[in-house]
């Protein structure tokens, strides 16, 4: 069984966010405010739980003193639910994991409706065996569903990976390198490998 994350693992969320902020910018919102509002829209009071939606982003932009027309901006933002952000090679990677006989489960944390729109817009959903949408707490989710078969967990978020490994020592946790985050030392201490390409991750899976 392979749990595979969506954002920044299969999907270039960095570019997606850039395009979101560019849309706000075309409506007169300074870029730094658009990015700050995005951070506020993502955050919840619970650690590693996320709740980003376009509506929350617009509300956060407004709370920072910017006036935008929700209806017009929302229409443009909804146009971003496309497959152009899927990392090159991601679909082939999933297919190769399935060919090895693994059940591939897409496990993504965030606002379920929003994540579903993003995943379905990307087209990734039709290639995996199952999609799972949770607000956060991947470590607990994996623990509660642990079975005897070999389990892999592929994800870019080093912090989530450390928690998954600590809570589920038998799970093979693999970190997909996220160029915007550096978890090298903390992952090294727990012997969690980091790879930047799908080929490297595939090679690890078939040899473990």
């Amino acid at each position, binding site marked *: 069984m392979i749990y595979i994350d969506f954002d920044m693992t299969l999907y270039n969320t960095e570019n997606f966010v850039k395009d979101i902020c560019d849309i706000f910018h075309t409506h007169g919102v300074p870029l730094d405010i658009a990015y700050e509002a995005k951070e506020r829209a993502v955050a919840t*009071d*619970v*650690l590693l739980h996320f709740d980003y939606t376009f509506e929350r982003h617009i509300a956060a932009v407004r709370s920072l003193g910017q006036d935008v027309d929700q209806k017009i901006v929302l229409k443009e933002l909804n146009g971003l639910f496309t497959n152009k952000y899927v990392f090159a090679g991601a679909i082939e990677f999933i297919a190769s994991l399935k060919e090895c006989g693994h059940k591939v489960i897409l496990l993504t944390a965030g606002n379920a409706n929003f994540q579903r729109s993003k995943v379905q817009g990307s087209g990734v959903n039709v290639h995996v065996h199952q999609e799972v949408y949770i607000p956060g707490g991947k470590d607990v989710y994996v623990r509660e569903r642990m079975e005897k078969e070999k389990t892999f967990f592929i994800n870019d978020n080093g912090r989530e990976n450390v928690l998954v490994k600590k809570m589920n020592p038998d799970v093979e946790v693999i970190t997909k390198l996220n160029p915007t985050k550096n978890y090298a030392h*903390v992952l090294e201490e727990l012997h969690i490998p980091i790879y930047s390409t799908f080929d490297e991750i595939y090679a690890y899976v078939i040899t473990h």
Partner: protein
Amino acid sequence: MDISLLKKIGFPDKSADVYLALLQLGPSSVRVLAEFCDLNRGSTYDALKWLQDRELVSFYKKASKQHFVVEHPEKLKQLIEKEQEGLMSAQKEIDRSMSELLAVYNAGGNRPVARYFTPDTIMRILTDVLDTCEVSGELMYRVYSVDGLREQLYKDFPTFSDARIGKGIAVRAIAIGEGGELRGLDERKYMKASSTTPTYIIIYPGKTAYISLNAKQEAVGVMIENIGISETQKGIFDTLWETL
């Protein structure tokens, strides 16, 4: 874990993050903690210092490097007890300084203070009328009452008249248009006037409140706290009252 729980007992954001990270990771170096929490080292040290000052975290040296370790979570209870003691002490200090604070507060009486009320909070004007009259000892207020607004204003406080009478507070009303009724401890006079945007005005000790309808036909209001404005409105009202 819900970070807001730690924030409730005074943890700054970064200290809460580092504390939870230490609980999750076990003994860790600053470098590892900074990476894990996505903070720079300076902020991580600041957060650790805050935690050390409250005896929630300690450190030991391993191969000349500092490793931080979280104390038993029971320490959080001790922190809450200390915070409670601190708050009790602060409350006593505030009690001692109250006359000084009130002197400063009252000195601000020269400039008007405006408060705005939404349809959800409009009822607070009515409770303020009763409270202010009661506290000031001036057990009468005045209103310009208008049809259409009256119903909106009192719909969330239907027992207002009973509460007013119970406190012995009288009201003198100039009704613009028709409607309204006497409920006790009240006098009412009528004035003919027409307006497409009527406003219900309450004049009470040191304050005036203006209530009108928004575009959705809901009551919204502004209350101005200023003795000068209140007294001027009172004078105009009383002069008009005599002519009706």
